[in-house]
């Protein structure tokens, strides 16, 4: 039997940084908050004026689109986004 190499992957804080960077690149004006909720699980809050007037699906697609690379593949760095909040600045 061949030796199985198990890649533990980068630490959660580093993945959170990569999520932040990926969103910031796609949405330069956004305020981004990423909280790690255990291995591979994250909660994200993004505040950006571009969300104004968009449906919830379209808002979330903008964020998910920015981080797809981190979520795809057989062993994705981001296993699940438990909660994604998209806010418009100044709107509660």
């Amino acid at each position, binding site marked *: 039997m061949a030796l199985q190499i198990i890649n533990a992957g980068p630490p959660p804080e580093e993945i959170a940084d990569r999520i932040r960077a990926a969103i910031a690149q796609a949405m330069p004006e956004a305020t981004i908050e990423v909280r790690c909720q255990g291995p591979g699980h994250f909660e994200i809050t993004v505040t950006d004026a571009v969300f104004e007037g968009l449906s919830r699906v379209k808002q979330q697609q903008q964020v998910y689109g920015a981080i797809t690379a981190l*979520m795809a593949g057989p062993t994705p760095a981001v296993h699940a986004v438990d909660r994604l909040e998209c806010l418009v600045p100044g709107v509660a």
Partner: protein
Amino acid sequence: MALDENVHQEITDLIEANEVVLFMKGDRRSPQCGFSATVIGILDSMISDYHTVDVLSAPHLRDGIKIFSSWPTVPQLYVKGEFVGGCDIIQEMFGSGEIYKTLGVEPLEIVQPKIEVTDAAIKALQQASAEHGGGGRELHLSVDATFQANLSIAPRTPADIEAVSSGILLLLDPISASRADGITIDVSETPNGQAFKIDNPNAPRIQSMSVRELQAALDAGDALELLDVRTPEERAIAAIPGAVLLNEEEAARIEALPRDTKLVLHCHHGGRAQQAAEQFISLGFSQVFNVVGGIDAWSQEIDPDVPRY
């Protein structure tokens, strides 16, 4: 992340060729995850014709669809080429009624079901609520596609419909409510203690069809599936013209049909057809007929050229 051009084309073709497409885990008959099953249940309550794509049997689509739509989870619903959402969003749109407009169908009529709860059942339900309820968890009654009713204690959802009977509040999702009018909830004593006994008069039952009615329906060209549930050996001796042997392949074809398809089953005398009819009822088919007297009655009353055996 760039999506492979061929995969992009494959997905584009799928959502252009089908007005309503659900990318899911498993297929319509056997969803492989709870979220996919929930969306199937919602869609089935509104439309009969839609296309599903099983991403478990096509790994390139499993990732591809996430990149295609900028959406990280499956199931995903597309209507007229547009991404609509995943399970949460579809449940929400179903609760608000918005989904009807998206699909271009008439809203499901909200039925306020009348439910009867016997005195013994009231006591048992009150006790169950006291023990397991609270914290936003309330009594739910659900009725599935085969009209099996189930009681549970679960959080309330925005789509829930309230039914009050003898002071007991029951919550039903709109699909269950449409199947629940006239239900009686009772308790019965079993060797393992008390159990709820739910009688649902809406549950489809097997209907009878005489050979004369069958002949008239065939002559009129009525839309029906005439199924022969005997063995191939018996079929070699005698067969009703137009009947199809119910083998495995045929059964799979039938199971994929809309649940209101008229199914007419016959065997030699009616016994085996009755059993097969029960199976189709349990799969959710609502128009299931057993030909009274089977092919033997057909030989005697309709066509003496069909040999008796």
